[in-house]
C-alpha cells in the first residue's frame, strides 16, 4: 500500500496509484478484447466470459453493464459520473440492484471501453460483478452511522474487496460467491442468506471478532446459513475465509450448475463435516502469510475519510419543532430516517420507489440531484441499499427539513421505507434474459394501489419482494409476502410465498398455493392484506400475525373467487 497523500473520501476507501493503475490496465485490456471480437478474431463463445468478467451481460434488449459499488458506498463525484453515463450512453436511466450495484440496461458493446474508462476516472469499475467469482461484498447501509452499531464493517469490507479482487484461486469457482458483512446486532445485510455472512463485533481486547455464517442463499434452493464459527479473531479473517472458499472450490459440484453453490455442499456434507474440512485446511495454512495485523487494518482505515460530526446544540430541538409544524415532513421522518450515533445527526433514506414507479430506477437528473444533496447535506457520501434505495448517512437534524423539501420537490420524498410501497423487485421479464415473468408491473400496480400514505402507515411494516424467476434476484423467499413469476406455456403466472424474513427473525417464505394469473395477482395480495388488517392484534405487524395464525387464515382470501 503506498502512502500517497490524497483527499480521503468520506465513508469509502481512497484509491492509491496501485489501484488506479490496475483499473486502467484492465480497461485497456478489455478495449483490446472488444476490438478483437468486433474484428472477428474472437468468437462469441470465446468473448462471452471476457465480457462477463467486466460486468457486461447481453440481456433481452441490449447489453447490460453492471457497475460495482463496493459495499454500497459511493461519492457525489461518482454519482455524477453515473448520471453522465446514463445520459450519454444509456436511455437516461440507471437501476440500483439488490446487491448495492447499479445497472445500465441499454449499453452498446462498442461504447463499453469508453464507459469503463470514464468509470476508472472516478475510481470505479465493473470487475467481478458477474462470473463464478467472489462478487461485490455487501454491507449495512447505515454503517458508520447507526446508533446500534458495534463496529463499522466497511474497513473489513474493503479488506475483503482487496483480498477477493482477481484472487487467482477464486476466479473460477463452481458458481458465484456472495459475502455480506454487518457490524450491528440488527441484521440489515441478510447475513444468513449469503454464501458467507459476517457479523462483526468487538472482542474482549477491543479488536474486532467475527461470527461466520456459511451456506445461506435464495434461488432455486433457499437455505438459511449455518453458523460456522463464533468470535473469529480479526487477524485470522482472511485465512479462515480463504479456507472456507478453498473447501468450496475443492468439493463444490461443477457438474450441475443448479447444485453448485456452497449451500448445497454444506447441506450435502453436513455442517460438522464441512467445518472439519475448513478447520483442517485452516490448520495446514501458513497463517503468518494471511495474518491481518492491526497495522494493516489501520492502514486501510486511514484511507477512509471521516465526517466532521459537528452540529449545533439545538439541532435535535429544531428537528422536533420542524416535525410539529409540518405533518407531511413528520410522516417522512417517521418512515424514512434512522437513528444516528451522534445525537445531532440522523440518517435519511431516499426512497427510489415513488408511488407507481419502478423500484430502483433513477434518472440521470435524479442522480445529479442526489449528488448535489449529498454534497450539501452529507459530506458528499452516498449509500446504495440492498433494498434498492439510497441513504444519506450523516444529515444534521436541524437541516433535515431542508433536505426533505428538496427531495420532495424532485419526487424523491416518498414516505414508504419498510412499508407496502417499499417493494424490492428484480428487472424481470421486461429486461432480463433469464426471467419468466415481469416483476416491475406487479410492483407498480401494488405501489399505486397502496399509495395512500395513511393506509401504508396503518398497515405498518410489510416487506414485499418480487422475483421474475427462480433465481430470486428480488429475494422473494425473504419477503413477508414473496411473489415469484413463473411461465406456463408462454404466459405469466405468479406464485405467492408468505412468512419470509432476511433479518434477525430469518425465515424462508412458504408457498401458499397454486400460482395466480397476472391479472389476479394484485387483487389477491390486496385481499391478503385486508385479511391481515382484520385479524391482527393491537400493534401486531403482518409477519407476527402470519406466524401466530399460519397460512390457512390467509389462503381463503388469496383464492377467493373473483
Amino acid at each position, binding site marked *: 500500500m503506498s502512502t500517497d497523500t490524497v483527499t480521503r473520501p468520506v465513508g469509502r476507501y481512497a484509491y492509491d496509484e496501485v489501484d488506479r493503475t490496475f483499473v486502467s490496465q484492465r480497461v485497456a485490456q478489455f478495449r483490446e478484447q472488444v476490438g478483437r471480437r468486433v474484428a*472477428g478474431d474472437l468468437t462469441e463463445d470465446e468473448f462471452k466470459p471476457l465480457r462477463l468478467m467486466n460486468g457486461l451481460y*447481453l440481456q433481452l434488449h441490449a447489453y447490460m453493464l453492471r457497475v460495482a459499488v463496493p459495499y454500497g458506498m459511493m461519492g457525489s463525484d461518482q454519482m455524477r459520473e453515473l448520471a453522465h453515463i446514463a445520459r450519454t450512453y444509456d436511455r437516461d436511466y440507471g437501476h440500483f440492484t439488490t446487491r448495492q450495484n447499479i445497472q445500465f440496461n441499454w449499453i452498446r458493446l462498442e461504447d463499453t471501453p469508453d464507459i469503463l474508462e470514464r468509470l476508472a476516472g472516478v475510481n470505479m469499475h465493473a470487475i467481478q460483478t458477474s462470473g463464478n467469482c467472489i462478487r461485490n461484498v455487501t454491507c449495512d447501509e447505515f454503517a458508520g452511522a447507526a446508533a446500534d452499531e458495534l463496529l463499522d464493517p466497511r474497513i473489513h469490507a474493503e479488506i475483503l474487496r482487496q483480498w477477493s479482487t482477481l484472487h487467482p484461486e477464486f476466479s473460477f469457482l463452481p458458481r458465484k460467491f456472495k459475502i455480506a458483512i454487518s457490524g450491528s446486532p440488527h441484521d440489515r445485510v441478510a447475513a444468513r442468506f449469503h454464501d458467507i455472512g459476517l457479523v462483526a463485533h468487538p472482542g474482549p481486547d477491543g479488536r474486532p471478532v467475527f461470527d461466520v455464517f456459511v451456506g445461506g442463499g435464495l434461488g432455486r434452493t433457499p437455505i438459511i446459513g449455518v453458523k460456522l464459527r463464533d468470535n473469529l479473531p480479526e487477524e485470522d479473517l482472511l485465512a479462515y475465509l480463504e479456507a472456507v472458499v478453498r473447501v468450496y472450490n475443492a468439493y463444490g459440484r461443477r457438474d450441475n450448475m443448479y447444485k453448485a453453490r456452497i449451500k448445497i455442499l454444506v447441506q450435502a456434507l453436513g455442517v460438522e463435516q464441512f467445518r472439519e474440512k475448513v478447520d483442517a485446511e485452516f490448520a495446514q495454512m501458513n497463517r503468518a502469510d494471511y495474518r491481518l495485523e492491526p497495522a494493516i487494518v489501520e492502514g486501510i482505515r486511514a484511507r477512509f475519510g471521516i465526517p466532521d460530526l459537528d452540529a449545533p446544540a439545538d439541532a435535535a430541538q429544531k428537528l422536533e419543532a420542524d416535525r410539529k409544524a409540518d405533518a407531511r415532513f413528520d410522516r417522512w421522518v417517521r418512515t424514512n430516517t434512522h437513528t444516528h450515533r451522534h445525537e445531532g445527526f440522523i440518517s435519511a433514506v431516499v426512497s427510489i420507489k415513488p408511488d407507481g414507479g419502478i423500484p430502483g430506477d433513477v434518472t440521470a437528473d435524479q442522480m445529479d440531484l442526489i449528488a448535489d444533496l449529498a454534497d450539501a447535506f452529507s459530506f458528499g457520501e452516498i449509500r446504495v441499499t440492498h433494498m434498492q434505495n439510497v441513504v444519506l448517512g450523516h444529515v444534521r437534524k436541524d437541516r433535515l427539513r431542508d433536505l426533505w423539501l428538496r427531495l420532495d420537490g424532485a419526487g424523491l420524498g416518498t414516505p414508504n421505507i419498510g412499508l407496502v410501497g417499499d417493494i424490492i423487485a428484480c428487472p424481470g421479464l421486461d429486461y432480463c434474459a433469464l426471467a419468466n415473468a415481469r416483476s416491475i408491473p406487479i410492483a407498480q400496480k401494488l405501489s399505486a394501489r397502496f399509495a395512500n400514505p395513511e393506509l401504508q402507515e396503518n398497515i405498518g411494516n410489510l416487506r414485499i419482494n418480487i422475483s421474475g424467476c427462480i433465481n430470486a434476484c428480488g429475494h422473494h423467499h425473504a419477503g413477508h409476502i414473496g411473489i415469484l413469476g413463473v411461465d406456463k406455456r408462454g404466459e405469466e403466472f405468479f406464485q405467492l410465498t408468505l412468512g419470509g424474513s432476511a433479518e434477525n427473525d430469518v425465515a424462508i417464505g412458504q408457498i401458499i398455493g397454486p400460482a395466480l394469473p397476472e391479472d389476479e395477482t394484485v387483487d389477491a395480495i390486496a385481499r391478503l392484506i385486508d385479511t391481515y388488517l382484520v385479524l391482527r392484534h393491537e400493534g401486531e405487524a403482518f409477519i407476527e400475525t402470519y406466524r401466530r395464525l399460519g397460512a390457512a387464515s390467509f389462503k381463503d382470501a388469496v383464492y377467493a373467487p373473483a
Partner: protein
Amino acid sequence: MDVRNNRRDMTGASVITANRLLDGRIVWLAPQGWSEAISQARVFDNAAVEDAIKQAKAAADARTVVGIYGVQLDPDATQITPLTVRERIRAFGPSVHPDFAPVETPHVH
C-alpha cells in the same frame, strides 16, 4: 441460448431473431438482411424454420449478430406477433417503458 426460447409447435409459423453484436439490439431476419422491426421479418412455416436458422447461422453476415433462434408467432394475431410474453416484450419493447419501444421505421441492413 436457453433452449426454451427456441421451442415451437409442429405446425404454425415463426420468425428468426438475434441480437446485433455491436449494440446488442434485437433484430429480425428480413428478406434482405436483419431488421430492427419485427414487421419486416420474413415468416417461415415451422416445418422450414430449422433449416432457415441453420442458413442464417452460416450466412456471411452471421458475424454481425449473436444468438440466432426462432420465435413462434401467434396464429390469431393480425400483425406479426410472437406467441409468448417474452418474445412480445423483445419485439415491442419493455412493457413498463412504451417510450423505449423499437422504432417501427424499416431499417434493413
